[in-house]
């Protein structure tokens, strides 16, 4: 391969990255330091009001008052994303491990089934939960069948939001976890039993440590989209609990405050990048230990 090709051959890739990733980020960053337009939209300038707004509100006399309401939304978003990730992890590990024990033909079929929901629009899938969890829906019917008399109302609760988030993103957890446990040598698990280890010991000391790249990868793939998710809090949480995704959407929509929406989006971006950096550092540390 000539040197020219090595450089020019990468141009399409770089062009794509520039147009679809880097340029939009700069535009959002630019908007976030812009000024609210008088009739919606915004005007270019350099003004940090939007960022100040995240932490402070203006009092009656224009003095700055610390207001944690947006910090609470950020913390809540992190909490829900972490919760959905943890639940996905707990559910995905046994599922992925079970799939890895099946015959080659069944494995392919089961993995296909795991990805099947992706063929249906996200909105439709979340709406389906609206019906399942709603009044006289399947969840309430089952609850009554098992003798529950006062139906607590499943919809518009934190639980409903978590169910929706886990349901939406768990395939992204199952796939990398499966890829990791599928590579495990079954003899290693036999060896741990042979050396007096119970099933729990095998899981804790052999399967989880060896599958950890997949567990971490899957956790990132679930955690990151959960941070910005909009549909589940809106439809299943009933918009009662504001999350970052909804907040951003509101600023660009109803509130017509583009700079503030963009500022929140930048905060979200920083959070995501932080998660990725932490993971990258962990991965290099692991490589150093191995070397």
């Amino acid at each position, binding site marked *: 391969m000539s040197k020219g090709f090595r450089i020019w051959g990468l141009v399409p890739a770089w062009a794509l990255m520039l147009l679809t990733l880097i340029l939009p980020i700069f535009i959002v960053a630019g908007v976030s330091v812009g000024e609210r337009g008088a009739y919606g939209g915004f005007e270019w300038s350099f003004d940090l009001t939007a960022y100040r707004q995240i932490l402070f509100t203006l009092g009656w006399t224009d003095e700055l008052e610390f207001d944690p309401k947006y910090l609470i939304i950020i913390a809540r978003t992190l909490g829900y994303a972490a919760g959905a990730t943890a639940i996905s992890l707990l559910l995905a590990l046994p599922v992925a491990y079970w799939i890895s024990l099946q015959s080659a033909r069944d494995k392919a079929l089961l993995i296909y089934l795991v990805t099947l929901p992706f063929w249906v629009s996200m909105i439709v899938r979340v709406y389906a939960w609206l019906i399942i969890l709603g009044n006289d829906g399947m969840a309430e019917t089952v609850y009554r069948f098992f003798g529950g008399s006062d139906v607590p109302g499943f919809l518009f609760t934190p639980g409903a939001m978590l169910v929706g988030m886990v349901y939406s993103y768990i395939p992204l957890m199952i796939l990398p976890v499966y890829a990791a446990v599928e590579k495990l*040598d079954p003899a290693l698990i036999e060896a741990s*039993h*042979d050396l007096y280890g119970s099933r729990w*010991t095998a899981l804790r*000391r052999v399967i989880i440590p060896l599958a950890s790249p997949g567990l971490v990868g899957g956790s990132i793939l679930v955690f990151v989209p959960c941070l910005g998710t909009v549909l589940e809090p809106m439809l299943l949480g009933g918009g009662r609990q504001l999350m970052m995704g909804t907040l951003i959407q509101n600023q660009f929509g109803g509130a017509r405050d583009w700079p503030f929406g963009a500022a929140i989006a930048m905060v979200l971006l920083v959070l995501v990048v932080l998660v990725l950096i932490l993971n990258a550092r962990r991965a290099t540390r692991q490589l150093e230990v191995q070397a």
Partner: protein
Amino acid sequence: MQKRLSAIEIIGVSKQFGDFTALHQVDFRILQNEFFTLLGPSGCGKTTLLRMIAGFESPSRGTILLNGKDISDSPAHKRRVNTVFQNYALFPHMTLSQNIAFGLENLGWERGKIRARVGEMLEMVHMSQFAARKPDQLSGGQRQRIALARALAPGPEVLLLDEPLSALDLKLRQSMRDELRRLQRETGITFVFVTHDQEEALDMSDRIAVMGNGHVQQIGAPDEIYEAPQNRFVADFIGETNFLDGEVVSVEGGHATIRTALGIDITAAQSGVQGPGPAVLSIRPEKIGLDARAEGETRSGRIVSRNYMGGFTHYTVEAGGVSLRVSQRNAQSRQGRLDVGDEVRLGFAAENARVLGQ
């Protein structure tokens, strides 16, 4: 042999995988402090049997006793038996010390005792300087030693070895054989060794169980298995042999007289012969003598091929319409050199031949 206790008793054990029967009603005993080998071609059921002793498979029928206790239904982690796996199955994320300590930790040993035992084990396999390494930083032979140390550390009642030498190169294999024998003698632990390599089995074992088609074909000391095979399968699988089809003319106790295409009636030790009828005569190539070395009644033959092997020369000799493989030791150099096309006398002592039922 004086009365010794059995370490393992296999009683009427069968194993079925769907329609396939891997083991048919196997019965035998492995004695304490014995180096016992399960030998057979792939698919003979030897690995299945080993995995049932380890607890990775359970018998479809029958009972397995470990030092008199029925372990047929106890899970692998409750059996005082350890395994050296074919590809060692060392935990790649743990150091060598951690690998060896794994079993001891699960048994609930105290930390100080574990540390002492790990050190002792590393020393035993001459790997002390590598304690902090990970398995992927080791050569095949070194991994093998660690796998042994890990399996021996908890002091199992029986050590199971699943073709542990098959992943090593030839030279290393030879030295590991001696090492395994040494460890077995030093620890006094019963070793159950699975292999398809007859040379390994003959070299290392106190006793060998030859397995074929899901049955135990013969159990005995290496020389018994080689010199007195009980059936065609064993005679064929262990070493090389000539089979001469023939007709049994009379049977008397342990001996039978057989008439073969060589045209001589030969009376030799028999097994599996019920009475007159078709049978085979088995005679090993090195038991047949040519010219001056020919024993017994001799026949004339012609050499059709000759392969010089250094210590031995292998010949194919045609006599009376049958072709026989003959192997002669090259004792004195250039003495009585035979070539393709030469006429020779060949003969063998009847006590070196066996008559085997069909």
